[in-house]
């Protein structure tokens, strides 16, 4: 799930200041904490109040979309409102905001959230925690299932560094675990220190170069196979 944090109300208000009619779109997709119809409604009320303090009237409507990052779902949901509003404020992560700008291109969509990280809900340790950075070169098979990219402040492939003290990381004032000590403990537990000892060469960062894309709808034709058969 994508973990988001709402922007400061003043920052959101500055973005929508030029408009008098806005659509506020929640997202029922994976983003956490929830940013659905209720959150969209509360944001509308706050923005209306803020506008009032400046002597302005703000008309707003709150809706929610199943998944703002899915072009077909987002387009069909938002289409009926586009002629009546001057701008959209999205409560989705950055993916949703970009998608809304793409599919509803008559007006601009503004972000109400900062997208923090792809994370898990881990109530026993922390509310939300980043376990994967979608780096494009998964190392979990050699690190005992602990990610040194998301879990290590320095993204080390061959840790730990000298900044670990009693298994804790120098970043954050020795309150968070050192991923490499966690990796060591996991691999020791399963008698796989051979994996810990192994040197991992420098990463190929082309897999993480922006903009990333994977083509899903490749075409297929049997023409070439037919030609080969004919040659035979």
């Amino acid at each position, binding site marked *: 799930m994508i973990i988001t944090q709402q922007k400061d109300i003043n920052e959101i208000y500055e973005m929508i200041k030029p408009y008098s009619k806005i659509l506020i779109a929640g997202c029922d997709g994976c983003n956490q904490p929830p940013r659905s119809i209720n959150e969209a409604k509360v944001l509308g009320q706050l923005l209306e109040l803020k506008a009032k303090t400046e002597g302005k009237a703000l008309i707003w409507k709150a809706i929610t979309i199943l998944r703002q990052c899915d072009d077909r779902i987002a387009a069909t949901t938002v289409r009926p409102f586009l002629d009546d509003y001057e701008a959209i404020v999205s409560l989705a992560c950055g993916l949703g905001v970009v998608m809304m700008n793409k599919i509803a291109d008559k007006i601009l969509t503004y972000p109400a959230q900062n997208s923090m990280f792809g994370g898990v809900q881990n109530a026993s340790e922390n509310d939300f925690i980043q376990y994967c950075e979608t780096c494009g070169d998964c190392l979990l098979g050699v690190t005992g299932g602990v990610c040194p990219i998301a879990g290590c402040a*320095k993204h080390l*492939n061959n840790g730990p560094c*000298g900044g670990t*003290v009693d*298994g804790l990381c120098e970043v954050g004032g020795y309150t968070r675990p050192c991923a490499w000590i966690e990796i060591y403990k996991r691999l*020791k537990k399963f008698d796989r220190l051979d994996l810990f000892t192994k*040197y991992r060469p420098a990463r190929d960062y082309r897999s993480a170069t922006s903009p990333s894309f994977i083509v899903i709808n490749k075409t297929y034709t049997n023409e070439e196979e037919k030609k080969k058969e004919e040659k035979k």
Partner: protein
Amino acid sequence: MGKRPAYSNLCKAIEAGHFVFTGELEPKKILDLSEIIESSKEMIKTKRIIAANVTDGPQGDAYMSSLIPSYIIQRDAGIEAVWQVAVRDRNRVALFGDVIAGAYMGLKNILVLTGDHTALGDNKKARPVYDIDSTQFCELLSKIIDDGTDYEGNEISGGKVEMNYGCVANPNAVGEYMEPEILKVGRKVEQGIDFIQTQTAFDIDVAKEFINELARFNVPILLGIFPMKSHGIAWYFDNYIPGVSVPKDLLKALKSAEKDNKGNKPAKYAALDKVNVEFFKPFIKEIKENSKASGVHCMAVEYERLFIPLLGEYPEYAKGFY
């Protein structure tokens, strides 16, 4: 020494069987290297300090880059530099560029570091780099020096890079944390390091056990010590340097040395020096006589007056190398 020849005075002296000493210099946020040059000259005068480490933005602070000061102390003071390079601020392209620039300027030693995170430094909002980690930097250096190429194998023309490089190790990783530390150093040994300089140690038993563990790699080890020229420095070190704690008795002795001689600078200095000599002289002796260490890295930054009281009894082996 492994497959690689000793190119630097530091490695040559170790190879010749001397128990070596290295010093430390810290370029700061200052457009003036006169203090560093003076310190280097004082090190030369001891005839016992073979090379001086030049730090690279310690604690993540934005200081003068270590490359030029390393060159300047070699040119203007005549002492060899152990050029510290952290992977925190440069990607593999910039590291390669700096290394061959350093080689061109006649630098002979590199100390590879990960580097304290920028979140600890004085520009906390910075984005740290860490494109390659310190072990991968060791591999890059092996490619530069041994193969004459960059990381991808593209050839360097116009000459051969003749340098030795080392890594750091942390003797304060004790108990269950020692094994991952030793295994980590093992990966760097595999990537061709020529020497190890350790973080500072205050506990002689811990230091000896750590050296004993590292000795399996057959790579020269220089144990780090940190004489403290004031109680304030000791206190800062105790509180702000990751993984290092200064013994309480030593802190207390430094504090009373300052307190008992308030207002009398020479007496205060003498008292502080006495505390340091009484603590570190037997410490060094023990390391030399009863461990497999090849030397001591003395991180007495801007505390040159302590060198002779501390090291005076050792041979003047370094003068033949300057």
